């Protein structure tokens, strides 16, 4: 064994034990039953839950798009701030992430409840209360809130790395600020957008808990379904694995499509 592979050994072992073996186990479980026989029964059973899969992807898509719409201008205007304000801004974005996700979601519950803070304020200014908790909107709001920093940070990093002389060159060649943005800054920030999308979309698709706490019983997502196969009374790791397997495949396909958009851009940036 040469030197490099010895140095890499601990990390290789880590990946084998915590990525490769669990993935193989998922596939193994997905195609077997209680008596260790090969079966497609688990996979076929998923067709009963197409609606949940579809809803998961839809919710993830919507919250990714909202994150992008909010996150891109956010990141762009951040790069225009002074260096010290940029640092402050970054810290403020990260700050909520230091609190546990569960706690943040509980906080949203108390805000959105029928007798929660927002409705109390509405009542106080004599407006009719709105039913917010246990709706799809509450779930999407919770997901957007949780994943927004993962959209802002990669986009911010990419834009702030764009050489200022490129922007000057755009101006110099007759492009006004909007044209410079459209033809130079935006195309050069596409790699950031792509990694932002993958960092939001992937965890959003497999979200659970948020949907349970903010969505009530009527907005079950695939993450909740998988969880219940392992944790709840309907213990069925074979079906749970089959769903995890399908979810992985769906995510890989969607990421492959996204990366295709990015390919032309990143290629040109590689020196």
């Amino acid at each position, binding site marked *: 064994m040469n030197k490099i592979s010895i140095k890499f050994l601990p990390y290789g072992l880590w990946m084998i034990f915590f990525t490769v073996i669990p993935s193989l186990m998922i596939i193994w479980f997905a195609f077997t039953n209680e008596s260790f026989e090969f079966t497609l029964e688990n996979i076929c059973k998923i067709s009963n839950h197409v609606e949940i899969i579809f809803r998961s992807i839809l919710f993830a898509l919507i919250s990714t798009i909202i994150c992008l719409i909010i996150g891109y201008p956010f990141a762009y205007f951040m790069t225009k701030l002074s260096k010290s304000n940029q640092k402050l801004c970054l810290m403020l974005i990260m700050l909520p992430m230091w609190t546990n996700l569960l706690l943040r979601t509980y906080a949203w519950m108390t805000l959105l409840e029928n007798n929660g803070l927002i409705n109390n304020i509405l009542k106080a200014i004599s407006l009719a209360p709105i039913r917010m908790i246990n709706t799809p909107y509450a779930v999407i709001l919770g997901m957007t809130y949780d994943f927004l920093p993962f959209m802002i940070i990669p986009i911010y990093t990419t834009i702030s790395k764009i050489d200022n002389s490129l922007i*000057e060159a755009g101006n*110099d060649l007759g492009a006004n600020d909007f044209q410079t943005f459209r033809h130079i800054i935006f195309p050069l920030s596409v790699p950031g957008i792509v990694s932002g999308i993958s960092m939001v979309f992937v965890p959003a698709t497999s979200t659970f808990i948020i949907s349970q706490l903010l969505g009530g019983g009527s907005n079950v997502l695939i993450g909740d379904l998988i969880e219940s196969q392992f944790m709840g009374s309907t213990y069925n790791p074979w079906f749970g694995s089959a769903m995890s397997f399908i979810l992985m495949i769906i995510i890989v396909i969607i990421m492959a499509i996204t990366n295709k958009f990015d390919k032309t851009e990143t290629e040109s940036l590689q020196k």
Partner: protein
Amino acid sequence: MKKINNIIELKNISISFDGQTILDNLNLYIKDREFVTFLGPSGCGKTTILKIIAGFLKPDSGQIFFDGENVNNIPPYKRTVNTVFQRYALFPHLNVFDNIAFGLKIQNLPNDEIKYRVSRLLKVVNLEGFEKRKPSQLSGGQQQRIAIARALVNRPKILLLDEPLSALDLKLRKEMQLELKEMQQQLNTTFIYVTHDQEEALTMSDTIVVMNEGEIQQIGSPEDIYNEPKNAFVADFIGQSNILNGIMLKDYKVSFAQKEFECVDKGFKPKQPVDVVIRPEDLQIVSKNKSDVKFTGIIDSVVFKGVHYEIEVFAQDMYWLVHTTKYFKKGEKVGLTFYPDDIHIMSKLFDQTTNIIKAEVVEENTIKFLDIVFEKDDLNIDPGSTVKLTIPPNSISLVSSDFADLVLTLDSIIYKGAYNEMYFYLDDENDNDQYILVTSENEEEVGTDLGLKFDFDQVEVNKCE
């Protein structure tokens, strides 16, 4: 109406960053269709002028005119100027064609015209067939040409070039210099070029603007600047020189190196201290017995430089740099000679050859200047009165800053044959040209902080009238 052939006029331009003045009341006219070069050491403000012309920087005060029209408030994208950036600034996501076509597409020109103009310029820069390549697939020299083509395709009235050749190797740089000059003549456009490389400036320019410390030192043709440098800074910066301290005795008569010489200069005050410049190629090494020998000396070092030998001759207690095609042996006793018109006389950067600084007597026999306090016996001047200190330049020594009376940044250094003359400017609220002059055999770099130690025994104290 203004004179029409000044394409650019800069009037009273001042700009400072973080309280540091970069340009101070700069005035400049640039003629149409000229190749103008701003030449100076880094930090002299040459790139700042370029950015002001391009519109990337707004001057704190002063006015900019293009063709007699004030453009102070015109944004860069509306100016009839294009820039070739120092690191090219090619758009990495666009191929060569789209990079060059960028400005034309912004103008919404018809596709046929864009294609025609891009392909024409690719021919000019000798890169036909490269349309589909990405900038990352090109060599430094090729990227350089694309950057030039991208700027020129818009047919600017003025092309700005910010040290465009500095990233290229020597051979390519020389080729590009000639090509740029040719392009400029062919296209009949005003080129404004920024460089710190004096050879580059001499090769390409119609007019050179020599700058130092945010001030214009001299404007002239390459020949003028080389043959008739206006001051010791220019002489030192443009080519190699022997720069000596001299005294103008009367018209056509100068004394330096402990001898008197005929010269061709006049119009100085009698006994005025001057800088004397003799170019190394104007000095001739001859047999020491020849009748017209000016000095005799010993060959101190000989270095072969390809076309010529670079020889140092030690004579009259100083070193003389000579360029000659003839070979001499180290240690050989020789004579040095030159013609009267090889002697270039110029006023000193500053009139004084010594330091005269105002100070205050704070206590009996105690004097304070520049926050330095020292004692002087038998002063007999009342405390509270102002005095003038005369501090000889050779009484100040350079020491490490821990032992120094004063730490200052070196602003200018000129070799005077036997020692270096160093100027340290003082930050003065009244904006006077206050400086401290130090002569030393040490060789130091401009911009470094040096510790100065005064020998107070040699300081002369005079009462102010």
